């Protein structure tokens, strides 16, 4: 049995060392679909944080009672429960945003990050730590998505959070329509993954040097 994990390690691993998007390449479909406006992306990120944190907590609370053979069904059920809750709340209290995000909130149910955390972490760790792991994984996902969205909205529309930016919104800047379209996300995400992995590689190399 592995030693009890430290909270700070769990958080750091989820956000940087083992970031769901650029390390594990999970949750890419929504990363491509809803990242052309920063505001939409932030709400999407909030939905994922809400779901990963609370489903991690719930799966962990039930872990000792859940029969092994049906555990994945139980996990999907719990994840779906939180996603529907969020979607319904959005429909009732922020209808414009609900319309903007369309089907993507509902599709969080199939987001591999959430099932991944439930299977890999919440199943084997205490509730409090699972909640934090879910929270941090959600944040790790959101940071990458918001970074993609900042690049896309700025280059594609010349604005950030709907506010026109100097230079980019002027006639000097020829807006990149491709950034608004789905391919823009492919390029942006690839560049971000490249930078993040290069940075990680350097750190790993330093660590190895230090160990010798």
């Amino acid at each position, binding site marked *: 049995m592995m030693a009890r994990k430290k909270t700070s390690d769990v958080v750091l691993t989820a956000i940087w060392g083992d970031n769901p998007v650029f390390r594990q390449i999970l949750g890419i479909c929504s990363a491509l679909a809803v990242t052309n406006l920063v505001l*939409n992306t932030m709400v999407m990120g909030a939905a994922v944080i809400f779901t990963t944190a609370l489903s991690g907590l719930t799966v962990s609370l039930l872990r000792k009672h859940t029969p092994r053979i049906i555990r994945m069904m139980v996990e999907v*059920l719990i994840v779906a429960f939180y996603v529907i809750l969020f979607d319904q709340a959005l*429909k*009732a209290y922020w209808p414009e945003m609900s319309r903007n995000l369309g089907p993507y909130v509902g599709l969080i149910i199939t987001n591999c990050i959430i099932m991944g955390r439930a299977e890999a972490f919440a199943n084997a760790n205490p509730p409090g730590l699972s909640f934090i792991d879910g929270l941090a994984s959600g944040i790790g996902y959101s940071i990458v998505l918001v970074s993609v969205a900042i690049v896309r909205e700025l280059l594609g529309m010349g604005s950030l959070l709907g506010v026109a930016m100097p230079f980019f919104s002027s006639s000097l800047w020829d807006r990149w329509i491709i950034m608004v379209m789905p391919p823009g996300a492919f390029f942006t995400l690839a560049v971000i993954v490249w930078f993040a992995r290069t940075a990680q590689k350097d750190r790993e190399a330093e660590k190895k040097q230090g160990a010798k």
Partner: protein
Amino acid sequence: MSLRDRAWFPVSYMFVLTLVLSTILIIFGTATRKRVEENETLAFERAVLEALSIELGAASAPGQIHRIYLSDIRAADETSASALMYIKGDSLHGYALPLEGPGFWAPIKGVIGIAPDRVTITGIAFYEQNETPGLGGEITRPSFRTQFAGKRITDAGRPLEIRSPSEPLDESSVHAITGATQTSIRLEKFMNERLAGWRDAMEAVR
């Protein structure tokens, strides 16, 4: 043999868990259903008022919109050929024709406003669409919509035209959105079918 090892345990476990979670969702859904429906009605009412260029001013609070809608908008009858009517005092101030058709991703629903002369457009508004944000989604922005006000429906053929931004305009055409060709083509198609149908129907009423 403990409880957990029995064959029926997983089935009952799943059943109970589903029951508990579904119950919570149903309660929450019921509690918010009225609000969700109100939001949908309000989005439609707002679109009708915007299409008719009714000045909402600073008083665009939900309650205000609903009140104006109730007092000034009449349901369609045989003299308006399925268009809602804007009646203030005793006189007709305009028609609001609901539009609906396929967009690039999902159906687009909107309203087009027409002056009492049955020819001049007063405005257009959309209350449901799922076009690409920043491209097709721009149809909801004033920069696209304000072009329609003052345009005239032609006597025959295509009532209105959505042209490429490089082409010159006349009194029955507007510019499309750059990068949203598909949205523009589809919008033009179903909008014109609806307007042409209405034009003919109103001809018969006259």
